[in-house]
């Protein structure tokens, strides 16, 4: 296994997963709602979303434990939708590891191999190899009970790939571990998946974890994929309020998109917020539509005193908001300012310690500014929801 992976690591050719309009209903609830997703061989894709958003259901549909009501699942062009789970040949790591308590670590890892009627000696040898890949070769004789949480997780990982599947599914595999161990294992999982050149579909609700590990992240919301893209795409160019809010910390101001006299988001109260000219078109919004502007805290800067030119920057390249400083939070390397903004809402500004002029900001009257290029305009409701206008109405 180790040998083959070294040769193939550069160009994985197998393990292309394709979900085509997959839907699963529980009564009236769309647990998974018309999800289509193509994962390239060797790609690491994370399904990220709050609990109950359908990501685990999607994973179980891929694994074959749940039958979709509509749509197909295909691996390397082969339709798996009607194939029994034990004939799919897909590896899976379960949330609580699901190690067999009556078998040793090595027996657990060898289980999928003996199920494939591989001779005993070979099973032992390959189980040992798989365990050495997760650096547990010395603990093969231990029972799961005798292993720590992190070690159990590694055994579960080794078991999931010992039979060389093209695709690995992971259902919040690190959820039960403490933070430090989780961070170490994130890199470990990443290293192994690269080494095996295996396609991975990973479920988590931890957005930091998804940013660390994934080639692409699919943001789930109420059974649908709200946006899919690299971590950078999602952080820098979210398309919806939900995505902007879920990935990273954001300052969000909701209002109506307007083109005149200058491109801006007009809020119910307070000054309009200047945005880039093409910002609305990117997400298919036209003037008059409900929209929100998203600005990341580290892109904002803060200074003492009131804004001098009102809402618009002098040359149109800077947006600003006036407000009153409510809190200053010291975070070691950073400082976080929480500002009550004129016209409602808050601005969280993150400034690196040592930045010039920071020490002068003591409030209460402050101005928050940012380059308008750092404003991202997003839709303020789920546009695919069709008749669902309750969200925008309530705003």
């Amino acid at each position: 296994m180790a040998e083959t992976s070294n040769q193939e690591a550069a160009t994985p050719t197998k393990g292309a997963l394709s979900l085509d309009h997959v839907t699963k209903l529980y009564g009236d609830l769309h647990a998974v709602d018309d999800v289509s997703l193509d994962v390239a061989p060797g790609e690491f894709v994370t399904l990220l979303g709050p609990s109950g958003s359908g990501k685990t259901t999607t994973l179980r549909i891929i694994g074959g434990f749940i039958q979709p009501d509509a749509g197909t699942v295909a691996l390397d062009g082969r339709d798996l939708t009607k194939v029994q789970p034990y004939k799919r040949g897909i590896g899976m790591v379960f949330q609580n590891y699901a190690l067999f308590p009556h078998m040793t670590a090595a027996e657990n890892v060898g289980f999928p191999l003996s199920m494939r009627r591989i001779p005993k000696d070979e099973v032992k040898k390959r189980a040992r190899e798989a365990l050495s890949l997760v650096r547990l070769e010395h603990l093969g004789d231990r029972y799961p009970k005798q292993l720590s949480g992190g070690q159990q997780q590694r055994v579960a990982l080794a078991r999931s790939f010992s039979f060389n599947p093209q695709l690995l599914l992971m259902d919040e595999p690190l959820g039960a571990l403490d933070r430090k161990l989780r961070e170490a294992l994130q890199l470990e999982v990443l290293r192994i998946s690269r080494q095996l050149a295996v396609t991975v579909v990973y479920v988590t609700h931890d957005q930091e974890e998804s940013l660390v590990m994934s080639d692409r992240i699919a943001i789930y919301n109420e059974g649908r994929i709200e946006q899919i893209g690299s971590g950078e795409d999602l952080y820098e160019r979210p398309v919806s309020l939900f995505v902007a809010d879920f990935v990273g910390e954001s300052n969000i101001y909701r209002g109506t998109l307007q083109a005149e006299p200058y491109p801006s988001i007009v809020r119910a109260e307070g000054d309009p917020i200047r945005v880039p000219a093409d910002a609305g078109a990117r997400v298919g919004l036209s003037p008059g539509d409900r929209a929100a502007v998203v600005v990341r805290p580290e892109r904002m800067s803060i200074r003492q005193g009131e804004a001098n030119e009102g809402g618009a920057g002098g040359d149109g390249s800077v947006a600003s908001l006036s407000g009153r400083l409510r809190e200053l939070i010291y975070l070691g390397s950073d400082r976080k300012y929480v500002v009550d903004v004129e016209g409602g809402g808050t601005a969280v500004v993150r400034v690196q310690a040592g930045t010039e002029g920071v020490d002068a900001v003591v409030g209460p009257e402050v101005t928050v500014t940012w380059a308008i290029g750092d404003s991202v305009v997003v839709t303020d409701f789920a546009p695919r929801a069709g008749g669902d206008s309750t969200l925008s109405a309530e705003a």
Partner: protein
Amino acid sequence: MNRRPHPLLVVCVVLIGVFLIAPTVIVIIMSFSTLSSLRFPPPDLGLRWYRNFWASPEWTTATWTSVKVAVLATATATVLGTLTALGLMRGRFPLKSWVTGLVLSPMIVPIVIIAVGTYILFVDWRLQGTLFGFVVAHACLGFPLVVVNVAASLQTLDRNLEMAAQNLGAGPIRTFTKITLPLIMPGVVAGALFAFIESWDEVVVSAFLASPFMRTLPVVMWTVVRSQIDPTIAALAGMLTTLTIVLLSGALLARNLGKQGT
């Protein structure tokens, strides 16, 4: 929790304990008597009545019958009970709670009702006084005990383990034999031991089913005690008590092992 119990409570508990255990202890002590009447305390100690038991064909035949009935009834009850528990815990079918009640009814219905019913039916079917009749009747009594114990094991079994087995390439049958069965084994063993004990000292149904040629040990004991009292019965009581303690300890041990395992 570490508070010392009140002295009065200690006295009460000890008295109740003595009250419960004393008859058994007295009988066992009397079984070592050398006299031909039951007297306490016995003036001399010996194994006379134990020898007498094993030398008497009436006792040994009944013992052998009891062993056969108990082993066969236990095997039947264990297989059927385990499968039933799986069906009840995993299956989805209409009237499930009614079926559950029906399955457990031998534990609830007064034993004498079961005995009379079985008797009437078995006389009709010519099963009264046969080994097969005993096995069927005792298996029915042991069956709910197996169901209850296996169901308890299944309740604590992590369904993800079975899902994992399927994911790793095990079909339904191998998932059951390699994963589910080994993990619920403590419950199966406990249920089997309870079923064995149920058959082993069952007297009411057995009395109805017995014929002069097919009698289990408790039936013979009951018959003998009614006509004559000799310390053989005390010797037998000693042996039965020991056996029951061993089996019950085994059943409890199996249960606890199961709890630790998962």
